[in-house]
């Protein structure tokens, strides 16, 4: 049978392709030359490609092969094969609805060609080069095909129409690409339980990333439980906006709010919930922005949920910027190129046009692109403003400095010069989450994973100011627990953000930044002294050490210290908050809505990480908590969370 099929398959080789008509061929050659000539008139002579190209290509392929040889090949179910292409096409349609029709006015030179062809949609085939005229002087655009013949479409008024946002529809990849092991995740082992008497101090850097949540969501929507290591609980928790009161003046960049409440999944422990809410810069005081979009246009970006989604996402962001802000675009594929020199947002059409002309193809030369993006950012540096490279990619920087460490060094260097870096991840199958984490953490930016246009709306529009305007830098949290009150504790999440105890006071150690209006939450599960949940035996000689403390401090559960720097300052400031009986609520229901909801998210994240602590705590209980603490939920994020928990419950058959 197998042989017979192979034979059947070989007859594919014997098919003859019907010859193209000579007229069609001539027309095509004519169109090619017409476009070529038009381009020649409007383009200055250009510089030539680099000599090391061949070597880069070789390295790329070797890298690919090495990775691919290790991977496991997942065989998609039959249903998947049918459903995915349809979902993909729907995704395309959605993307297309956001753009006006591509039809163009013909110009004289090529209209005859258009008329003689059979089907009716040929207007776009002609090559009106009016768009190119805007390119000035020796500036050389070098995306794979940035000046494609459809350039005229950019002349048509096009707005991103933010009013039209489809509900989160998973834009799946139509090809059932192997869901292989190429996605790399940054995560550590789940934080271990700490015994207060032995290690009373816990130190970590804040994390404002949300990439993990979007990744989890996508995975669940595709009907697969996410890999436990892809789940970073703190990113799940920090995905949601909470209604905590922020400070009213910029001199104190944030408020802290601490609540100690019973743990829903363990009656003998408590949760110590630490919420930090950043000061919100009002819109009129916004600093000027200098943004460089660094766009991956490698072949793998050629999927509906990658480059097209990326373009639409940036269009959304563009609407949030002021006319005085500058935007530039650098692309990278086989080589890096500048697709748009720094341009004021007031020349929006020009920016949109450059965006439209990005096309995908080739391998990935991330490092080159990154260097070029930094160069542009520095060339239009805004003193005291926001200088940021926004990297959009689906995966690797696999040419050039491939090691995460080398990249990290480059990004750290540039961070010192005042240019920060954010990473937006797109698509799936190739996503290198570890790279994203490394560079966003070291570039002091956000790492967000964008799977739908509504996610882009959340990250780039709703949270534009918190993603762009930093109010406090190098924010570190240190909690000291009182062994008289707390026997054991465990930090939920923040595995990738742990700092050494001595790093807290060391201003040279980098940590996360907080943007305008950002909220950050950290949750500890603590075991009170005398609780039956205690995992370790009490130390026979442990009690003597704290005997010297004043009586008042003996009552405190813990002492929370926050260190931060005002933007641009070298020395940190300290905020200290004792945690006392006043912070404790006796029943879980008495805790605030936001606290309870974040506890539900924490429970969900830990369950997805297969934490044994939650093995007897059901998804239905998570749903109950989340449902009761949904609140106003104006953007539907919490409702979406509930649907994800239900999905996970259905998928988790163990």
């Amino acid at each position, binding site marked *: 049978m197998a042989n017979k099929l192979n034979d*059947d*398959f070989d*007859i*594919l*080789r*014997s*098919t*003859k*392709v*019907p010859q*193209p008509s000579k007229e*069609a*061929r001539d027309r*095509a*050659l004519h*169109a*090619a030359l*017409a476009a*070529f000539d*038009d381009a020649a008139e409007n383009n200055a*002579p*250009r510089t*030539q*490609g680099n000599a090391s*190209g061949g070597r*880069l*290509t070789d390295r790329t*392929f070797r890298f690919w*092969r090495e*990775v*691919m*040889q290790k991977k496991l090949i997942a065989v998609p179910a039959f249903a998947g*094969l049918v459903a995915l*292409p349809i979902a993909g096409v729907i995704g395309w*349609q959605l993307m*297309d609805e956001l753009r006006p029709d591509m039809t163009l006015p013909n110009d004289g030179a090529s209209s005859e060609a258009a008329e003689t*062809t059979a089907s009716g949609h*040929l207007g776009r*085939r002609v*090559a009106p*080069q009016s768009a*190119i005229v805007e390119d000035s002087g020796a500036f050389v*655009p*070098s995306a*794979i*095909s*940035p*000046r494609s*013949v459809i350039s005229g479409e950019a002349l048509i008024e096009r707005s991103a129409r933010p009013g039209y946002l489809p509900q989160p529809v998973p834009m799946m990849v*139509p*090809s*059932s*690409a192997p869901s292989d092991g190429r996605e790399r995740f940054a995560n550590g082992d789940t934080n271990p339980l700490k015994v207060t008497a032995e290690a009373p101090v816990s130190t970590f850097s804040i994390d404002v990333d949300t990439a993990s949540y979007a990744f989890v969501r996508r995975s669940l929507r595709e009907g697969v439980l996410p890999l436990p290591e892809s789940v970073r609980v703190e990113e799940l928790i920090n995905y949601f906006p909470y209604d905590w009161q922020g400070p009213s003046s910029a001199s104190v960049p944030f408020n802290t709010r601490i609540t100690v409440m019973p743990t829903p999944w363990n009656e003998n422990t408590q949760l110590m919930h630490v919420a930090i809410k950043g000061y919100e810069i009002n819109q009129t005081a916004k600093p000027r922005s200098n943004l460089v979009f660094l766009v991956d246009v490698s*072949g793998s970006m*050629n999927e509906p949920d990658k480059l097209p989604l990326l373009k639409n996402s940036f269009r959304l962001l563009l609407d949030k910027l002021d006319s005085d802000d500058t935007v530039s675009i650098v692309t990278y594929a086989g*080589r890096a190129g500048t697709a748009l020199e720094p341009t004021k947002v007031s020349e929006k059409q020009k920016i949109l046009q450059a965006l439209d002309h990005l*096309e995908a*193809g*080739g*391998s990935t030369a991330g490092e080159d692109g990154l260097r070029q993006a930094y160069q542009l950012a520095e060339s239009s540096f805004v003193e005291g403003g926001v200088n940021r490279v926004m990297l959009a990619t689906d995966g690797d920087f696999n040419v050039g400095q491939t090691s995460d460490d080398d990249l990290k060094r480059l990004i750290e260097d540039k961070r010192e010069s005042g240019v920060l870096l954010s990473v937006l991840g797109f698509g799936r199958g190739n996503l290198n989450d570890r790279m994203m984490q490394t560079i966003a953490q070291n570039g002091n930016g956000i790492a967000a994973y964008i799977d739908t246009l509504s996610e882009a709306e959340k990250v780039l529009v709703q949270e534009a100011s918190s993603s762009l305007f930093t109010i406090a830098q190098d924010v570190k949290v240190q909690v000291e627990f009182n062994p008289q009150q707390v026997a054991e504790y465990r930090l939920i999440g923040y595995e990738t953000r742990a700092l050494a105890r001595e790093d807290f006071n060391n201003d040279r150690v980098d940590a996360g930044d907080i943007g305008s209006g950002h909220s950050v939450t950290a949750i500890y599960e603590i075991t009170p002294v005398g609780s039956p949940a205690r995992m370790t035996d009490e130390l026979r000689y442990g009690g003597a050490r704290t005997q010297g403390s004043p009586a008042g401090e003996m009552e405190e559960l813990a002492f929370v210290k926050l260190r931060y720097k005002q933007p641009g300052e070298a020395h940190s400031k300290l905020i200290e908050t004792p945690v006392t009986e006043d912070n404790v609520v006796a029943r879980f229901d008495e805790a605030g809505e936001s606290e309870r909801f974040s506890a539900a998210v924490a429970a969900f994240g830990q369950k997805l990480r297969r934490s044994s602590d939650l093995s007897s705590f059901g998804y239905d209980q998570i749903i109950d908590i989340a449902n009761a603490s949904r609140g106003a939920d104006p953007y539907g994020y919490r409702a979406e969370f509930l649907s994800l928990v239900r999905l996970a419950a259905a998928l988790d058959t163990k």
Partner: protein
Amino acid sequence: MMALAQMEQSLADRELARAAGRGDRAAFAALVERHYDFIYRVSWRLTGSRTEAEDIAQDVCARLGVAIRTYRADSAFTTWLYAIITNAVRDAGRKRVREGEKISAWARDLSITDTGPGDGPAEALWAAVRGLPAKQQEAVTLVYGEGLSHARAAEIMAVSETTVSWHIHEAKKRLKQIVSVGDA
């Protein structure tokens, strides 16, 4: 020896493309002349319609006239060209969908209306190939349609060789189902 010929051709392509990128009109004309058949063939394999393929090939040629200036010799010319072709095919497909044709119609029915010479078992199988997911379809087109090795197809698709083999494997499995359903 096949490989050697390919290598020579690919070097010549690179030279021509670079010259064309510098504004050498004759080099560009020669390049398009040389690759028109490849462009048309791939378009035909992916769409199954002669007129459609002719349209797309013309579209690709016109895009080339502009894009050639951005070509730098750090990827094989055919790899680069192939990306432009598949983009054009996808744009055309998207256009069709928007124009109200049914999704499945674009994938399958087109091949029946205009299969070219004869409609033997091979043509029927090609029609089935067009119903496959895009990447599988592309892999089959390059390996069976263009007679390329998996390695070469991988280079053109800018993926790894094992991915191409996987696509081919999946395509065969899928076609096996279709073929056996047809027999029964």
